[in-house]
């Protein structure tokens, strides 16, 4: 967009100055919007009107066909009024939204928008009604209590996401995704938003400090390879059984064939 403007306005010497000022404003605005958005915990404030306008445009172009012109929801998709910036950021920044062909649940796909565009959409949606905000960078930093995080993770999360965060099955084709590549921000947003069939873990249930503990634990798992060698996807005894049959026993049978064959 900016580039096209540049070529259009090149003739006038004034134009160059306008362009520079505009560019600075955009960059600065985006920057301040991002930082202010991260600093926001539970209000819709902090987004600029420009962001909301850009967000509205993006919304109409990319989201309105399913979620309705005013985000009121249609038969195909839920209302976005009150879902909050965190929900938009979670769904769009993981590539789940815009949603692809229907299936049991939204899939992680390549991300379609820049972070600035996502922030703009978040700004628009959060302007409709208050909802959970995108968490502060300090809230999602992995510097909590790793032991407590592990305990909370096992009680609240492991039944769906597996004790090592490897993911697991839900009913009718739905599943809990693997968490080994999720950022602290995504994990935090998922807890406060409760996307699709995941329950919501509000701040009374799991306090912000405890959420940080959980992120700390998951980051620990992400940062540490298994001490015992390849972790086989942390999928448990079934994979181990397959490895012993197809790998170890297969290798041994190959050796027995060599052992039983006559030398020439």
């Amino acid at each position, binding site marked *: 967009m900016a580039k096209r403007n540049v070529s259009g306005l090149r003739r006038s010497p004034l134009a160059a100055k306008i362009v520079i000022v505009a560019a600075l404003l955009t960059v600065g605005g985006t920057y301040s919007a991002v930082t202010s958005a991260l600093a926001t915990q539970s209000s819709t404030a902090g987004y600029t009107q420009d962001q909301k306008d850009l967000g509205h445009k993006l919304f109409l172009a990319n989201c309105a066909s399913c979620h309705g012109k005013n985000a009121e929801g249609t038969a195909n998709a839920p209302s976005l009024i009150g879902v909050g910036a965190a929900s938009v950021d979670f769904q769009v920044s993981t590539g789940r939204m815009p949603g692809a062909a229907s299936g049991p649940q939204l899939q992680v796909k390549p991300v379609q928008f820049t972070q600035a565009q996502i922030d703009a959409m978040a700004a628009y949606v959060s302007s409709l009604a208050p909802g959970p905000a995108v968490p502060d960078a300090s809230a999602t930093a992995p510097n909590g209590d790793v032991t407590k995080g592990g305990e909370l993770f096992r009680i609240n999360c492991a039944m769906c996401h597996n004790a090592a965060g490897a993911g697991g099955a839900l009913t009718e084709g*739905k599943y809990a995704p693997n968490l080994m590549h999720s950022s602290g921000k995504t994990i935090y947003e998922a807890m406060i938003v409760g996307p699709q069939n995941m*329950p*919501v873990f509000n701040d009374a*249930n799991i306090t912000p400090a405890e959420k940080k503990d959980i992120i700390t634990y998951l980051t620990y798992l992400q940062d*540490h*390879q298994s*001490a*015992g*060698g390849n972790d086989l996807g942390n999928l448990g005894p079934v994979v181990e059984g397959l490895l012993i049959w197809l790998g170890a026993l297969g290798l041994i049978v190959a050796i027995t064939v060599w052992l039983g064959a006559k030398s020439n």
Partner: protein
Amino acid sequence: MSDNSKDLATVTSPYSDHEYPAGLANVSDDKVTDPGIEPHRVRMTDKSKKHEKAAVRQVAALFFLSMFGSAFALYAYFAFPIDANLDTVRNNTLFLGLGITLGLFGIGIGAVHWAKTLMPDAEVSEERHLTRGSEAKRAAAIEILALANQESGFTRRKLIRRSLYGALALFPLPGIIIFGDLGPNPANSLRHTFWANGTKSKPLRLTKDPDGALIKASDVTEGSVYHVIPEGLTEDNPRYLEEKSKAAVLLVRVDPKDLNEAADRKGWSYDGIVAYSKICTHVGCPVALYEQETHHLLCPCHQSTFDLNNGCKVIFGPATRPLPQLPITVDKDGYLIAQSDFHEPVGPSFWDRAAKTNSNGIEG
């Protein structure tokens, strides 16, 4: 076996000392003749000195490789110590394991290679004897048995024999009963949970697992799920795990409009908040997976699925009974409390589960 005795082919045995029946098998007298063991194929190592020498060197090289592997394992034990860093454990495992593997493979492959290339490889035939003894041996054995029988009077002296049978039948019983104190009479233990400790004047409040924080009804927003244990059940309780095994509860709020409650359970929920036992009625895994859009609870062990909106009835999987519901309400401070214990035993079924009293006549 008399029914087909006519059909039984009796063949002259290849074994010299007796005949044996062939059963229902067809025994063909027009079998293709056996050409005997095929002639021995000479190996390169038998033919050429050069190949033989090469094989000797290969075997020795493998044994040297083994020595190197074992020595490396010794080195790795000291060179890769472990400390609080997990990567050191990984390296210790890796290099120690590699050394030992090499040590083992060197010996194993070397020995087999030795046998295959340098030891004689002409197949030998050895005669096999019938598993049963020769007629003479069997006769001698029977004679010994008969003599023993005669000398002891085992068959003859019925009183002794039968009383011995009786004694032998009874003597293991003390050895079995002595295990009786492995565990107490289960009595009513399966019928009560920690929630029964609440009274009318001091009901038990619902607290979060594991930290025991109290839960306000207003904290339980729609779509959220709380993993709950009774107030006062803490880690320092000597029966913490046993009590938690029965008392664990899932707490969920749904839209009261969606809640389809049985007439006699109308008062068991509070403003759409319901509490159900977390212990599966199949074999006791924690039914901890809550899908907030479908309001289904799924057990990750055997996939029993319960419908929270309809009294946690089973809609899929091997379980039969709904999860037991814990009657709850709020106290004057807005905290969630249990009205009473569960009204039925929680967890997997057992034989007299439905009985009001157990075999000792104690009220359940």
